[in-house]
């Protein structure tokens, strides 16, 4: 038998076009485009030049650089900061471990966070709060991600341990943050002292984690064959979606107390979290419902035919396909939830934006420096939202949302 010879024609990929060719193709093709370029170019150059000049010459960044800890944790007692640190380090360590265990998208996220903390540690800011110890702690967090990675790589370490770790981390973090009455090591810290990015992330993460299961339940409820359940879910979803978030925030901060027994008092921050969760759950429910409708009925019939119970069909057949189909919408919902947490400023909670406002109000001299504060806040939000949307796009590509199904 003669060996078949595989002749492979190797083509060189086309060379990238030179800069002149590129400019001719993209900026000066046709007289209309040439005119447009000639008009826009000076405008774009002027805007770019003047904003860079403003950033480095005219702007006074003291309203940002003088309060690093205020932006990060608000009024959290400075001698109790290690408690915030424990929660943060725990999360970063688990992130590293998940990277080691599963890789994929988690790799990019973990590396991004490690780099972020390395940058924090080396920030050229001179401030007494930003001393060597703080820098060392931030740098250590970057290393902690790496340490987590190597531990996650150990084969004998079960993946379920990491999942359990993720499940108990929020509880541990909240216990460390709030502490106990009459405790010497963990004295209680009221949520009125919490603030800054800490609160923003707590609200966003809490809202996402809590709203998603509620959303799934509501979506299933709306599709339920029981009229009472279906009607209740539909009314709930449509009412929440029909009113602005700010009314729901006010409902929970003012009205809720009237409908509960008079002796019960719910913490202010918790009420805001409940409002954000309820609001987000209604939107998640509609996303999940969209996914459920996209699952072909044949799938469910086939599952029934091989003897799966209703519950098994839902968990192993319907849900995975439904959630994959609407993944982009779900992540988009999480991004808008993250942005929406800023509304808690209006009910008087000092989240990241609220801290910015209180810094401006703390000193009449800062009234002229508002633009610096708001731009800094805008940039921070922008970075996190943009990273989330990149992650969403990668996740979509990985799960083949557009190619399969």
């Amino acid at each position, binding site marked *: 038998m003669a060996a078949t010879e595989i002749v492979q024609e190797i083509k060189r990929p086309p060379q990238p076009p030179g800069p002149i060719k590129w400019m001719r193709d993209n900026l000066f093709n046709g007289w209309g485009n040439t005119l447009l370029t000639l008009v826009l170019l000076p405008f774009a150059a002027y805007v770019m030049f003047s904003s860079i000049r403003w950033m480095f010459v005219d702007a006074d960044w003291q309203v940002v650089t003088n309060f690093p800890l205020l932006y990060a944790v608000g009024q959290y007692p400075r001698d109790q900061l290690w408690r915030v640190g424990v929660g943060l380090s725990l999360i970063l360590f688990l992130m590293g471990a998940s990277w080691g265990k599963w890789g994929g998208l988690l790799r990019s996220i973990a590396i991004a966070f490690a780099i972020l903390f390395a940058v924090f540690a080396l920030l050229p800011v001179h401030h007494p709060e930003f001393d060597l110890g703080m820098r060392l702690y931030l740098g250590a967090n970057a290393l902690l991600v790496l340490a987590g990675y190597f531990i996650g790589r150990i084969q004998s370490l079960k993946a379920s341990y990491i999942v359990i770790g993720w499940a108990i981390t929020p509880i541990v973090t909240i216990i460390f943050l709030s502490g106990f009455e009459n405790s010497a090591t963990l004295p209680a810290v009221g949520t009125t002292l919490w603030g800054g990015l800490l609160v923003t992330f707590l609200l966003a993460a809490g809202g996402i984690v809590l709203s998603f299961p509620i959303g799934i339940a509501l979506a299933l409820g709306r599709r339920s064959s029981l009229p009472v359940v279906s009607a209740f879910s539909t009314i709930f979803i449509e009412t929440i979606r029909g009113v602005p978030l700010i009314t729901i925030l006010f409902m929970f901060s003012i*009205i809720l107390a009237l409908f509960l027994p008079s002796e019960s008092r719910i913490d202010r921050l918790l009420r805001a979290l409940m409002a954000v969760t309820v609001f987000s759950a209604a939107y998640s429910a509609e996303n999940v419902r969209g996914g459920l409708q996209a699952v072909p009925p044949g799938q469910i019939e086939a599952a029934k035919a091989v003897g799966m119970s209703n519950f098994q069909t839902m968990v192993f057949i319907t849900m995975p396909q439904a959630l994959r189909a609407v993944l982009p919408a779900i992540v988009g919902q999480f991004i808008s939830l993250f942005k929406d947490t800023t509304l808690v400023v209006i009910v008087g909670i000092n989240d990241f934006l609220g801290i910015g406002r209180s810094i401006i109000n703390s000193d009449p001299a800062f009234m002229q420096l508002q633009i610096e504060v708001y731009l800094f806040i805008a940039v921070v939000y922008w970075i996190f939202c943009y990273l989330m949307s990149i992650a969403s796009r990668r996740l979509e590509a990985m799960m083949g949302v557009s190619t399969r199904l």
Partner: protein
Amino acid sequence: MTTNQSSIQYKSDIPFYRDERVLKIIAQIISTILIIGAVVWAIMNFLKAADARGMTLTFDFLKEAAGFPISNPPIEYNPSMTFGRAFLVGLVNTLRVSVFGIIGATILGTLMALARLSSNWLLSRIALIYIEFHRNIPLLVLLFIWYFTIFGQLPRVQESITWPGLVYINRRGFYFTWLRLTETSAPFVISIGIGILLSIIVYVILRRRRELTGQETHYSKISLGILIIFPLIGWFLCTGSPLQLDVPVLEGFNFSGGLRFTPEFAALFIGLTMYTAAFIAEVVRAGIQAVDRGQVEAARAVGLSTSQVLSLVVMPQALRVIIPPMISQYLNLTKNSSLALAVGFQEVFSVGKITINQAGRAVPVFALVMVTYLTMSLLTSFVLNLYNRRIQFVTR
């Protein structure tokens, strides 16, 4: 007979706690009890609290004098008028900013989408920067930037930025020279109304005839002609010009006359419009890209002009994809107008909040605010869904 009997036998074998029909009824009863129980429990708590604090649940307060001012009210209002009137002013303000915002955001968003799809790299990049900037920053931060930093730095009244005779901008607001109707303008206004109505009727009739018979009826030209001729006739019927220029004049410490927008309205309007436009741009872009390239090529091949390709082939197909997400963007804009509270523009929500502070009836006021927003949302989505159903694929 035997099979029938065995199936009956088979069914009666199932214990009731495994019979799906029985289980469903039980589940219904349990969920009903749980839901009603929770509601009753909450209401009982509320009644107890209301009793203890001496709260009332009636809407009587709407007839009491409001006692708080609203700056630049769109309809006549002063603090001695009732809470109901104040609420109405708030509602008109909400509608005003929403309608202006929707129109502005649709135009800006469509332009940005076209710019994003432009073959000019620079233009496309500028649009991309605009879109990504607005999509990833919370609206509240953008509103603060507009209101506190940009409009907060406006000059005092005496040092207004002006384009003499046309525009005056200062801390009190934006003043534009505007056309105002004179007292003798009634024939002009009436003839405009008749013209609009007639041109719509003519358009519909002639267009339907064209669709039925295939004859060219020049429906768009004729109805446009009617739209122009009627106001002209009305103009000449008036004694003297029906319109006069209303120029803002500095009187003491303030401008009077002209069209005035407060900085609060301007900040909310511009912030909302630019924020929503970024989302609309993505919606429109997705819609245009969803139209198959072959459609455009085929339309060209049968000899349609560029404008015909756009209006007869691309847009009708793109609109089917665009309309549903566009509806939700419009609803978002309307709901987001409640952020006016943060910049001090008095619309439904902030009037409601002031009413709670003044009259202290949190529950009725909240019920009123929520019902108002729900009605607006449901009405908007109802009307737009009707339109959406009209433009979906017609299977003949």
